[in-house]
């Protein structure tokens, strides 16, 4: 028998080890983003503050914006809120998508913690959430001026995430717009 063939099990073992090692770094809970590169889904929903004010996708287009999915029942949103306030102060346009929440509780929350949002969409049934592929809050989408989704973050956006995932792309999109 060919002597090299004796090393075949060892080679197979090595390949398997490498594949499994690479797999260790992956988060199995993270879904691939199906909507990156796609336009923001069409919707018609009321504003959080005013049930009679109707909002749709045209209210979002035209500017480079962050769309932040939040809710009062979402614990991580409390942590993220500080960061969103900072971003809003720096002039970043943040639009809130209040997801499957209670209107009064949400308004109270914004009174108490500050309101970083240009406006908040009130998605009580989570229908826009489904169209966006939201599976938990918080989630944050970066949209270009054409209303195309350019980046999606599932989970909290903090300084580290902003620096590594958003800042450069945001700056580039702002430059493209001009």
């Amino acid at each position, binding site marked *: 028998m060919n002597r090299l063939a004796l090393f075949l099990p060892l080679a197979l073992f090595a390949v398997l080890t490498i594949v499994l090692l690479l797999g260790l770094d992956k988060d*199995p*809970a993270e*879904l*691939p*983003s*199906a*909507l990156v590169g796609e336009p923001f889904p069409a919707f018609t929903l009321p504003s959080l503050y005013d049930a009679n004010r109707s909002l749709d996708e045209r209210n979002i287009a035209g500017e480079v914006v962050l769309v932040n999915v939040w809710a009062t029942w979402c614990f991580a949103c409390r942590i993220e809120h500080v960061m969103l306030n900072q971003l809003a102060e720096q002039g970043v346009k943040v639009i809130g998508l209040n997801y*499957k929440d209670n209107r009064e509780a949400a308004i109270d929350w914004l009174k108490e913690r500050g309101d970083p949002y240009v406006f908040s969409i009130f998605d009580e*049934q*989570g229908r826009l*959430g*489904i*169209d*966006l*592929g*939201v*599976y*938990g809050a918080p989630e944050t989408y970066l949209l270009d001026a054409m209303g195309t989704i350019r980046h999606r973050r599932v989970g909290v956006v903090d300084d580290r995430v902003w620096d590594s995932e958003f800042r450069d792309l945001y700056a580039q999109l702002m430059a493209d717009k001009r």
Partner: protein
Amino acid sequence: MPIGLAAALFTSMLFGSENLVKFSDESLRIRYQTLITELRCPKCQNQNLADSNAPISQDLREEIQRMLEQQMSNREIKQHLTSRYSDFILYRPDVNKTTYLLWGSPLAILMIGLLIAVRLNRRNRIHAGSLDKTEVDQESRIAEILKSGEDDK
């Protein structure tokens, strides 16, 4: 005892009716069941939509019910959901460039196994053949010796 039994039955009825899904056509229910067992809850790792109690699963079950009532085909419904939640949501994903390894590897491993089996088998047969040859040689020699013995008589 009968009161306890009645109470147990009553509560089970309560819980049963709470989750009842209504369809305009009962044939949709079968498709509904197939779909929710075949689709995966996006929030939970190893549960399908049928098993999961996560709010997102409830929403997606309602969404599927709504789409079934709109006469959408199973294919369209899956397409609708994967365009939002990606292939992650399919427990039986289509064959494409990210899943060919998943679908192909069992076949490839089977092929490798067959190849090894065929080769081992062939080698054994060659060995068996050479054994036969020595046996034949021995037998012919024995015959020769016996024959020469007979000639001596």
